[in-house]
């Protein structure tokens, strides 16, 4: 392929070798469209750690998608710099850059005239991979996104359901193992049940592959469920708050963020906390039981449902290891306000 020969092949080879995430930095990035009074994105700075899944949440038209699209230069920034693994993307060939940044959009955009296998093979083919390697990779990816290759590889996109198409879209974006992924409301067009399954599957996948991901959504609950950190954005992509889900729920920076969290902030926080966060009381005999691996929200659910004063918490083997009651749950919420968030971030992931 003629367009792979340019000065930055070395850099691309380096970041391709790094299939796990790399650092991503946006530095004073502004996008001003000609003839518009205000910029679409104004002075946006953010530093994303390798392997981090950052959610951009905001109302439609706030510039979150524009910000994301500047990373793979589908939109060119007016000023500022964007660095992937320390390298300014503006110094790279945009087409070559895009082959090394995974991209998933809401409408999926599978090529209708190509089979699922051919769709997934698109980027590897452009990168000049050998046939065998592509075939193996397609097979592996289809399994990863839980589509049986023997059934789906040779099907055309219109023969798949919406959820299956979205899985194929994710597989296609992962094909060349890009260290950075951009996802624009990828599950937005699916029904709630499918969406929840896709979210869970994707989190499991991300735990394995550890990509650096910008994930755009307008659904705050999705942001809480998925994000390592959430950036709540307002007009002109202004960052209102950028923090872990737990900390945003516990102490929203301002009214704007509060309004975005909506009703039930406490319940949402509980869903992010493992039962082990609470001080367990002595084991009680009988009554409902809950495994310690559940969340505090699950515990509260069971208390409310069963009407029991106190429920038994069991260890993974099913042995009673203590009990929890309403007061203990409230206590966690009270003390954990911003303070408990200083714990390790991994504990925060749902």
């Amino acid at each position: 392929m003629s367009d792979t020969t340019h000065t930055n092949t070395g850099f691309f080879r380096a970041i391709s070798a790094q299939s796990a995430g790399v650092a991503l930095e946006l530095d004073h990035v502004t996008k001003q469209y000609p003839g518009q009074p205000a910029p679409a994105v104004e002075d946006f700075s953010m530093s994303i750690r390798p392997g981090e899944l950052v959610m951009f949440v905001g109302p439609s038209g706030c510039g979150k998608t524009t910000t994301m699209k500047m990373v793979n230069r589908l939109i060119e920034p007016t000023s500022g710099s964007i660095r992937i693994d320390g390298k300014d993307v503006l110094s790279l060939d945009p087409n070559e850059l895009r082959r090394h940044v995974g991209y998933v959009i809401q409408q999926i955009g599978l090529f209708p005239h190509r089979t699922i296998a051919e769709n997934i093979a698109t980027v590897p083919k452009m990168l000049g991979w050998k046939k065998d390697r592509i075939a193996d990779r397609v097979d592996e990816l289809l399994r990863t996104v839980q589509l049986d290759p023997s059934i789906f590889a040779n099907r055309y996109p219109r023969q798949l359901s919406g959820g299956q198409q979205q899985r194929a879209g994710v597989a296609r974006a992962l094909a060349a193992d890009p260290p950075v992924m951009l996802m624009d409301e990828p599950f937005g067009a699916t029904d709630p049940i499918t969406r929840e399954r896709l979210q869970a599957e994707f989190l499991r996948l991300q735990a394995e592959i550890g990509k650096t991901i910008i994930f755009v959504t307008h659904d705050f609950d999705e942001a809480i469920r998925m994000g390592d950190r959430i950036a709540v954005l307002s007009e002109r992509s202004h960052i209102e708050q950028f923090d872990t889900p737990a900390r945003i729920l516990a102490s929203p920076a301002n009214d704007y963020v509060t309004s975005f969290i909506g009703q039930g902030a406490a319940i949402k926080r509980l869903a992010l906390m493992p039962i082990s966060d609470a001080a367990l009381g002595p084991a009680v005999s009988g009554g409902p039981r809950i495994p310690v691996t559940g969340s505090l929200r699950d515990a509260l659910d069971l208390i409310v449902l069963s009407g029991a004063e106190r429920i038994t918490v069991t260890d993974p083997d099913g042995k009673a290891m203590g009990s929890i009651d309403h007061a203990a749950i409230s206590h966690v919420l009270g003390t954990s306000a911003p303070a408990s968030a200083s714990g390790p971030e991994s504990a925060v992931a749902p």
Partner: protein
Amino acid sequence: MTATVALLSPRKARARERTQRILRLVTAPVIVVLAVALLFWWLSTLQLDSIEQRTLNPTYIEARIKEHLLLTFVASLLVAVLAIPAGILAYRTRSRWVRSFFLALGNIGQATPAVGVVILLAIVWQTGFATALVALVAYSFLPVLRNTMVGLEQVGDDVKEAARGMGMTPNQVLRRIELPLASPTILAGLRTALVFAVGTATVATFINAGGLGDMIVNGLKLQRYPVLFTGAVLVAAIAVLIDWLAGVVEDLVRPKGL
């Protein structure tokens, strides 16, 4: 048609498509063979005078058919070579002005009556094959141009964005995504152009460019209706057959998965 197909279950839709395709494949040739057989049977029952015999013989008819087909195919080929790239250019240019220019060009070609174009061209230029060819090309330009533009515009934005987002260059997007997806529409335009050309080629007789128009006009002028009738039926038969052939080609080259 696509809408009704989409409502059915895929298997039923496919079965239905297959039946439709077989019907389409069989109907047109059968009708043409019947019509032509009927024509020749009728001719065989007639007592032909010397004038009629001069045209209603295999050598003459074959020569006219060859002229007619040559004109049709060369014109259509030229249209394909000129109008498809023009359509691509018009689609890719950002300027509204260029688009409207191309469309207006095609519109003028088609709005002018074919006889008028042929005769005007013959007056200002020359008579004969080349002139007829130019007139035919002008006449068939629009459907191909317009279908190329429309076909490319119909390709979903999501598909184009995904293609660009994966690092395809604009030319790769055109070749690998847009053109294949637009090909059914473009081919439909070519098919229209071909059928147009068959009909319009009859006018070539007025500027001495031959074709089956010779038989129609001669039959009319000399009041030899079997000659007129034979010419007319043959033109119609060719038009139907070419449309059928183009339909078969369309089915064969349509990208799978659409």
